[in-house]
Structure formats: structure tokens, C-alpha cells
């Protein structure tokens, strides 16, 4: 099978006053269409950097990224990003934030009425239909994050990139949004790369979990295939032995094999 997205031998050096800092080296990854991938690793290992390279916001020093047969070298709406801190434009309402993306992507392809329907459809998808004319400072953190997801989905991206999308949320809201995301991904058959710190989140949502080694020169350590049947139910999985085995494997990678060495 042909992968939709391929990272081959990706490496990046950041220039610093003390010479180049090699953040990533030899990152290889093939992702098929419709796959849900999680990136997990200790803080500062280079997860965001990988995502930013795929998004085209950073340029790899080594190797490259190929999406659907074309090399990625600049950002674009076919690789929509949901940023860690929602990144909504504070002066626009939820509706207008999504509208900005829809107008850009579907200019000349959808009529005004179609665009309006599409914006509302996406906001309803994340259950934000009731508050779409509120501004970011008038809605809660979880709601903002949902609008961010709606904005990304509205671009009909080939790959959805999520950088710790639920990191700043309370456990209840997070669980709720994880369920929504699973549903949406199933319905749309989207290809997703999600960064997370949360082992349960990774196992629950992913088809594969990519575990990264500690930096500098971080790379892919192990890849875990999660072969749990979908739809997945968090309550039933809680005492499913296979689920707990996956969980245990990720934990062992993070806390035994890649034990965070405290520098300084």
C-alpha cells in the first residue's frame, strides 16, 4: 500500500549562539490514509518540531516530507494544524474564525450560502452550534479548542495535525473531546497526527503510537500498533487486559527505556 504521508530521514538543526543544535535526526515514518497516529515523548524531545516540519512551518535540514507524492516545503491548508493554545483570532467570533479558513480554501468553489452551511456544519460537528457568534474571550477553554478543531476540519485537510490539543483542559472536558474526535475521525476517515503527553489518550485514540527518544538528536524510538476494535469505549477498556498491556508498554518505554535524565 502506498503511504499518504512519508517522512524520510528527517533531521533539523536549529542555529544557536553556541553552534547548531541538532533537535531531530533520522526520523522515518510512513502514514497511510485514514490512520490515527500519536506522537508521545518527554517534554522538549522534539514532538512539536516534527509536527511543524510536516505542517511546513519549519524546514527540515535533512531529508524531507512527501504528502500524496508531493514534497512539502511550505505551509498549506491541506495540512491543517490545531495548535496547543487554540490560536483563535481574539477579535473574531467562533463563526468568523472558521469563516476565515473556509473563505480562503473554498473561494470560487462554494457559493456564499454553501460556505455558510459548511461553516455551521463544522461548528455543529464539534457541538459549538449554540455559541458560534461568541468571541473567544466569551467561551471556555474547551470550547475554544473545539472551535480550533472545527476550523481545521473545515479546511478538509488531507492530514490533520494536532499539537497537544487537549493538554490544557480538565479531565472531563478532555474525555468528552476525545470521544468527539474519535467520532469525527471515523465519519470523515481523516488522517491524523496527534501529539500527546497522556498515555491513556494515546492508547485510546491511536492506530499506532510513535514513541520518541529524548533529544538532542531525537528520533523515533519504538512504534506500537494498537489493535483494539473500534468504536472504543473508555469505560469498557478500563479493565480490558489488552488495553492495559498497551498502556504498560508505553509507560515502560517512557519511564524505563527513555527515563528522563535530569540535566542541570
Amino acid at each position, binding site marked *: 500500500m502506498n503511504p499518504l504521508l512519508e517522512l524520510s530521514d528527517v533531521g533539523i538543526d536549529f542555529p544557536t549562539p553556541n553552534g547548531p543544535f541538532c533537535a531531530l535526526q533520522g526520523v522515518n515514518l510512513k502514514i497511510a490514509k485514514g490512520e490515527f497516529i500519536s506522537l508521545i515523548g518527554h517534554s522538549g524531545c522534539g514532538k512539536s518540531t516534527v509536527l511543524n516540519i510536516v*505542517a*511546513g*512551518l519549519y524546514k527540515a535540514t535533512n531529508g524531507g516530507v512527501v504528502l500524496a507524492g508531493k514534497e512539502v516545503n*511550505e*505551509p*498549506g*491548508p491541506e*495540512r*491543517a*494544524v490545531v*495548535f496547543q*493554545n487554540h*490560536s483563535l*483570532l*481574539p*477579535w473574531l467570533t467562533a463563526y468568523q474564525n472558521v469563516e*476565515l*479558513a473556509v473563505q*480562503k*480554501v473554498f473561494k470560487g468553489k462554494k457559493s456564499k450560502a454553501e460556505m455558510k452551511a459548511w461553516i455551521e456544519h463544522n461548528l455543529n460537528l464539534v457541538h459549538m452550534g449554540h455559541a458560534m457568534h461568541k*468571541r473567544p474571550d466569551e467561551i471556555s477553554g474547551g470550547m475554544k479548542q473545539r472551535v480550533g478543531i472545527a476550523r481545521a476540519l473545515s*479546511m478538509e485537510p488531507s492530514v490533520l495535525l494536532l499539537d497537544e490539543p487537549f493538554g490544557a483542559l480538565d479531565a472531563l472536558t478532555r474525555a468528552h473531546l476525545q470521544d468527539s474526535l474519535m467520532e469525527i475521525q471515523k465519519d470523515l476517515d481523516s488522517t491524523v497526527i496527534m501529539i500527546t503527553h497522556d498515555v491513556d489518550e494515546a492508547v485510546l485514540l491511536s492506530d499506532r503510537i510513535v514513541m520518541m527518544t529524548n533529544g538532542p538528536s531525537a528520533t523515533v524510538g519504538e512504534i506500537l500498533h494498537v489493535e483494539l476494535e473500534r468504536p472504543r469505549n473508555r469505560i469498557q477498556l478500563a479493565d480490558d487486559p489488552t488495553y492495559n498491556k498497551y498502556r504498560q508498554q508505553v509507560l515502560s518505554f517512557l519511564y524505563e527505556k527513555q527515563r528522563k535524565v535530569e540535566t542541570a
Partner: protein
Amino acid sequence: MNISLSNVAWLEPVVNVAKGKNVGTNLQIIFKSLGIPLVGILVFLVLWSIAADRIDTSLGKFPGPGEVATQAKGLIKEHNAERIKAVAFYERQEIRNAERSAADPTYEATIRPYTGKPTYIDQIFTSLITVMSGFILASIIAIPLGIVIGLSENLYSAFNPIIQVFKPVSPLAWLPIVTMVVSAVYVSDDPMFPKSFITSMITVMLCCLWPTVINTAVGVASISRDLINVSDVLRLSYFTHIRKIVIPASIPMVFTGLRLSLSIAWMVLIAAEMLAQNPGLGKFVWDEFQNGSSDSMGRIMVAIVTIGLIGFALDRLMLMLQRYVSWDKSSATR
């Protein structure tokens, strides 16, 4: 939007007291927001009249509040008298023209404009027009310049030293240069604007340009990386990026700059008018100083109070405009 209510903190309690609601606490609020400032003003007036009594100058006693009030009334009376004279002048002309055309149908009536001396009120308006022209001209230059500089780190580094050097230059230093350049460049037999107006306006512009440039540039340069990333992912074009992201994001800082610029413009204007002899408040003060009559000091004090009040009003106006335009209501306080 409750512009009036938020600026007039005592209004709502007054309404409440009138309705007999919570009279005790509301009276306290009224005393705090209205009573204490009034007490402050009263104490100031008393100290002023005591001090004024003790200062003797070559033109007599330093004017106290009472003398200043009298002078203010006098200036308004002069203004009204001048207006009546103007009306009478035009009436006389019309009657004369009517008579002449009755006698000779080929006669073409001309109305000559009234050329009385500008009154105090006229001078206030001249000053306002001059300061607004200079300020608007400065803003038209400063905001786009600030945006362009703020967008590029290199341009910012290139322009910063120039801005920092020009920023502290006093209007008194600019004025001679501006006067000479205007005299040389602005030559026309029938000028649309008097030279003194152009000179004052350009001096005002040169002095009040910088705060807006700097604040706009800083505002643009400090737009959060996240918002830029959104724009990048959407592949917004340069101009869409400026229109949809840069301008709204930097509006609060732009207004901070505009308010600083306007207050500088107003201060500079008075000095510029004095030297350029532009018929505004600055020239009024200068003429009264040259005049040296017993009323002069009182009249100058009237001008000082007027200048202060107008400066305050201009700042409030900008604040209202900011509240109206900016999405970030919290930055538009004070």
C-alpha cells in the same frame, strides 16, 4: 456600549438616589466620584487666589480665579460683538447691492468678505483645525510606516536608530527649518492655505509622528507567533495577512501611539503657532504677552485653562474612538 456611563461614574448613583434606591451607599459613591474631585478643584482655586494675591508683577497683581473668569467673559463678549458686526456688514452690502442692481440691471453684485480681527473663539477653532490636520497627516504616514517596519526585523533595526534620534527633537528646533522650506517650496499667488498654517501643521506632524510609528511597529512585531502560524497555514496573501491579522492584532498598540501623538501634537501646536504666527491659541498668548496691558495676564491664564481643557477633551475623544474601534475593550481604559 456605555461610553457615557463609564466615564461619568456618578451618573448611575444619582439616578438611583432619585429613585430612592439604596440611598446611603449611592450617596457615598456620588461623594467619592464627584465630591472628592470637586473638593480638589475648590482647594486648588483657594490656594491659587491666595498665591495670586502675593505675586506682584510689572503689569499688576497675578490674576486670581475671579480675574480669569472676568477675562473669559470679556473674550466671549468680544466674540459676540464681532459676530454682530459681521452680520451687520453683510446686511449693509446686500442692501447696497440690491439698490444698485435695481438702478442698473447689468450690475454684477459682489459680496466682499468681512475682515474683522479673529476673536478668541475663532482662534480656538484655528488651533483645532491646525492640530487635527497635522495629527491626521502624521497618522496617515505613521500607521502604514509602523506596520511595514514592524513586519520586518531588518527594517525595524534599520529604522529604529533614526526614529530614536528624531523623536526627542523639540518643535522649536524644527520650526525654522520648516519655515524656510515652506517659504521656498510653497509658492503660489493665491495660496489655498496661509503659509503660517502649513508651517505649524508640518511642525506638528514632524513632532507627533514618532509615538505612532514606534507603537504601531512594536504592536505589529509582537503579534503572537500562533496567529502568524494560522495565517501561514491558511496561506493568506500579504495584503490579506495585513488586513485580517496584522491590523486587528495591533489596533490596541496603534491607539496607544495615537493618543500619545495627539497629546504631543497639541503641546507642540501652541509653540509652533507662537513662532509661526498662525492665528490660533499660541499666537493669542504671544500677542497678549507682547501687548502687555493690565488684562494680558488674565487673558493668558484663560488661554492656559482652555488649552488644558481642550487637551483633556481630545484625549477623551481618542479614548472613545478606541473603545468604538478596538476589539480589546480592556486596553481602552484610563
